[in-house]
């Protein structure tokens, strides 16, 4: 068993260990989850390091084929040519690190959870196994299997542990995501048969030129299918409700990692396999994602609930991911991947912090808070850093991503109208102002101003697990913001084969 399979087995082993532990031993359950998630974080970091080492040896120019590291290939259903094909390239490696960080901090942020702790963590780790699986699968069938494993536990996690209209939200989320899956599966089958190879092997499929008629329908099917989970307008409405209802740890994983499956799939499968379809549809989706960016941020201005507020900001920020992809050039792709990473960290930080604030104030309504900066300075500072990252302050990760995406949009590509692309980019840049408006408004409402509510005068102090979780996330945000090459050097070589499929060089 190679290291990648071991990484896939780790969350399952953790879940197994949790299952074998009696449900009332809360401390032991937390301990197992902590150790398990830490092991996953460390192993994903190790794998990313290994990938980085291997990638740095590659020459940038002649890179035409996707290079897989730590590859494992086993035949699974030989009659259908379905394989267990896993491996890593720079993009997957960066996503693994993101997942590792988020699961570790999500476990920390769920430390004070009481209700059905055992089942909660078991499902959480099952979900993580699915997410890890998606990021390392290079066989479409395997990809789908893991994708569904990642999506389905969400229903239970929100339905059982959620708040508010949790059943409604859980059902809506699951159904919309399954609808997306339908598009994805249709696209996959089209590719499977259209390639003439009848294989699900992504590497083999990536060497085929598909018929234009196939690309014409399969690309939008796949892109919208993944777009649903990536909150593409107008398929985003599951996200505010889902985020608002989910418990803290689940929101973190969901917004932090799960929504990234959309961008990842759209790039890794949609654009990579169907470049002509991508060129044909790029402007349509570029326009939709521009709506995402501006509309999400404008929608966020008027929200009253902290979680809805963050969810709308996620809609806007996830728009940047898909926008970057639709620019069809290296900068846009890089920006999209960096945005996946940075938004994952940022939004994980946000939802973690909202959980911590809510755990103390028992309200998430902005107007009922105010002046909390005095009583919870640690959370206030963390929230400010998260907020500044969210509005794209240089020095934090969000800026690097947005700057790449803007550059991508501004530089355009040879296949779509430069004027339209550039105009849409200019519209999208307006979001940096709107984002500043809602972020500052939200922060001011919660933390600034006079502290009026006497119930908030004496709230529990910040615990070690909360400090550790926020500290890690902030350190990562600043690390990527200050040393962007940590990320760009890792992902760039892996993006070149995708560009080569498009027929462009930059």
């Amino acid at each position, binding site marked *: 068993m190679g290291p990648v399979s071991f990484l896939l087995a780790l969350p399952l082993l953790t879940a197994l260990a949790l299952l074998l532990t009696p449900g009332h031993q809360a401390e032991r359950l937390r301990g197992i989850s902590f150790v398990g998630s830490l092991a996953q974080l460390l192993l994903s970091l190790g794998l990313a390091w290994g990938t980085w080492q291997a990638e740095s040896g590659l020459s940038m120019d002649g890179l035409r084929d996707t290079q897989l590291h730590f590859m494992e290939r086993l035949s699974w259903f030989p009659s259908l040519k379905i394989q267990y094909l896993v491996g890593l390239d720079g993009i997957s490696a960066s996503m693994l690190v993101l997942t590792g960080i988020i699961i570790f901090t999500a476990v920390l942020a769920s430390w004070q959870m009481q209700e059905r702790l055992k089942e909660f963590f078991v499902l959480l780790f099952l979900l993580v196994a699915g997410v890890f699986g998606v990021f390392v699968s290079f066989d479409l069938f395997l990809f789908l299997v893991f994708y569904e494993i990642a999506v389905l536990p969400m229903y239970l996690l929100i339905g059982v542990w959620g708040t508010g209209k949790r059943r409604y939200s859980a059902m809506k989320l699951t159904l919309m995501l399954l609808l997306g899956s339908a598009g994805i599966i249709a696209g996959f089958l089209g590719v499977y048969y259209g390639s003439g190879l009848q294989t699900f092997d992504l590497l083999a499929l990536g060497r085929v030129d598909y018929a234009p008629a196939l690309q014409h329908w399969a690309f939008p099917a796949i892109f919208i299918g993944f777009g649903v989970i990536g909150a593409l307008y107008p398929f*985003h409405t599951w996200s505010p409700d889902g985020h608002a209802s989910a418990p803290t740890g689940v929101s973190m994983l969901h917004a932090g990692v799960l929504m990234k499956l959309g961008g990842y799939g759209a790039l890794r499968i949609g654009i990579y396999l169907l470049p002509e379809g991508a060129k044909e549809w790029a402007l349509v989706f570029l326009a939709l994602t521009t709506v995402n960016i501006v509309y999400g941020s404008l929608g966020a201005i008027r929200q009253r609930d902290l979680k809805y507020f963050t969810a709308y900001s996620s809609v806007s920020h996830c728009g940047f991911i898909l926008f970057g992809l639709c620019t069809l050039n290296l900068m846009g792709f890089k920006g999209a991947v960096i945005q996946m990473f940075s938004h994952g960290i940022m939004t994980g930080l946000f939802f973690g912090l909202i959980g911590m604030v809510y755990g103390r104030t028992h309200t998430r309504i902005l107007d009922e808070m105010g002046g909390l900066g005095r009583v919870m300075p640690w959370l206030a500072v963390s929230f400010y850093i998260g907020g500044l990252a969210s509005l794209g302050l240089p020095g934090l990760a969000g800026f690097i991503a947005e700057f790449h995406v803007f550059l991508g949009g*501004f530089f355009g590509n040879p296949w779509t109208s430069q004027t339209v692309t550039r105009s849409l980019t200019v519209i999208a*840049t307006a979001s940096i102002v709107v984002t500043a408006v809602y972020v500052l408004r939200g922060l001011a409402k919660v933390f600034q101003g006079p502290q009026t509510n006497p119930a908030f005068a004496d709230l529990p102090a910040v615990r070690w697990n909360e400090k550790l979780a926020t500290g890690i996330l902030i350190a990562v945000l600043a690390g990527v913001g200050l040393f962007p090459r940590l990320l760009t050097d890792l992902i760039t070589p892996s993006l070149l084969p995708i560009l080569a499929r498009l027929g462009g060089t930059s």
Partner: protein
Amino acid sequence: MTAAPEMLAQSGRLPFALEALWLVPLLPLAGFLLGGLVLRPLKLRWLPQVAAGFVLASLLLSLAAVKAFFGLFPPGSEHPALVTGAIDWLPVLPGLSFGLGTLIDPVSLLLLVVVCTVSFLVHLYSIGYMADDPGKARYFVFLNLFTFSMLGLVLAPNLLQLFVCWELVGASSFLLIGFYFDKPSAVSASKKAFIVTRFADLGLLLGLLSLAWLGFRLLPGLQAAGAVPPGLEAADFALLNHPAFHEAVLALPPFVGLSLLSLPLLLLLMGAAGKSAMFPLHIWLPDAMEGPTPVSALIHAATMVVAGIYLVARLFPAFAAAVTPLEVAAFLGALTCLFAAVIACSQDDIKRVLAFSTLSQLGYMLLALGVARADHALGHTAGLFHLFTHAFFKSLLFLGAGAVIHAVHSNDIWRMGGLRKKMPLTHISFLVAVLAIAGLPPLAGFFSKDEILRAALEGGHTTVYGIALAVAALTPFYMARIYLVAFGGTARSESAKQAHEAPAIMTIPLLLLALLSVCAGWLPMAEYIGLDHGHAAHHGIHWNIALPATAAALLGLALAGWLYTGDRRARREALASLLGPLGGVIRNKFYIDEIWLFFARRVIFRGISAPIAWFDRTVVDGAVNAVGWLSRALGASLTLLQSGQLQGYASWMLAGTMALVLGLGMLLGGN
């Protein structure tokens, strides 16, 4: 710009102070990290001293750098631009990369000295000013962060580093304006400052994107032709300021009537106007006075607000090649300097008067840059000269005002009075600053204003010259007004009677700044930073300029004396009735704030955001729910088939099987 210094830079034979100039911004950053991550959590009491120490180190290093630089390239000669300590920060594409580094030329050194000096003195002053504030650790940490960002901005060798630091100074300014975060007015002022400048930064960002694109497109051709030195990147100032680049850009087809060089520069000018609070984006600066007064002195008078001026000066060759943006700049500058000076005459809050005065003086600087041209670059020198002198006397005014506010506990000048005797040191330094900004010889403001007026007149911009001359009379008027009301006469409130002199840690910076306000004008600035060494270099007094300017200043002072010495209420009321409703308009700052507020509240909030939120919940989400409802209704109708009767099911099964058999039979029978 010549080959030799670049070789010098590459061979690493530059003096240590220039090689290690990257330490100048990094020292305050180290102070920020040390303070924020170690000292503040440990609640160590000497954090302010440590913070000031880091800035002092930067100051000393930058002074050493100035000495080393002008030791290598003596004043009056051609000055190269060196880049040291460069790292490849953000490689984007093969052929497009953004580095970090330090750009060393006379202009950046000038700003370096200004920033380090004022920052250090403000740190020093703050040790006294903030001594009793429970949040002082946070205050000094932010102050260090600001100093780092500002120094990074000043030393930026390319547009991206400038943008990065530009945003960071904006953020630290936001944090410091909102320092008293319990106070709703401070909170909204900080938000306003950030959002308004952010709006302007949109222009800066788009300008950066366009210039990076142009650079990326044109650079390979220029390099292949050998027109530009090797090793340049797309957004480097060295490229953007290169004549060959301008030529290549101007050869491209124009866009909506503007050359492709003017367009990005106009966008950059928008960013500059936001940061330097030019009309109509000035609204954030007066409100920014909600922050602690030393912050206003450092950020909102001497350093951050001049970043916009610095940006224009930094890209001056490009601006001069495009011309149109310079004309816009001159117009904006002239408009703002007159407009703000008029408002300053009507305000009663001492800090607001100073804020409007800052606006007006910033307009002066931009105006100076705007009247300069490639063949007549006196305005460039003059604008930077004024930036230099203004930094000292304006921060002195703010720090003096801070000492006064500290003593009187009020910002209202009508609650002060008679402070001349109670606070002698503050009084002396404030008076020096008032006279300096009024432009009386031989104080600093006189020389720099003189240069600006001369630049406008000799450049043939007579309207601009007229406005500048009018402002030269208004400035002394409103400055003398607050001086006379606050320091002259007798105490008008209890707290003013109780006022006493600030501690030495606060008065020493005041006196040092007073000294600088006197002497800063004596530097032969043109020899250090002048662009055209050929003809305009001679320094001295130009009587055709100095006489009207001094006369205007004296006129303003005399008018203020006539209105505000002793009890002159009757005269003031007569003047007010003479102005009629115009007086109210001026007092309300021409209602610009209200117009913006209307735009923000009514148009953006109510008109756009609320409908979008509604649309999303009702229409888009409604569609989703409608799909859900439909499928549920369909399911409900189909449940009727589920009768629970075994034999019913069996009949259906039979019917199904038969239908299948018949169907198959027909299908196969057909063949």
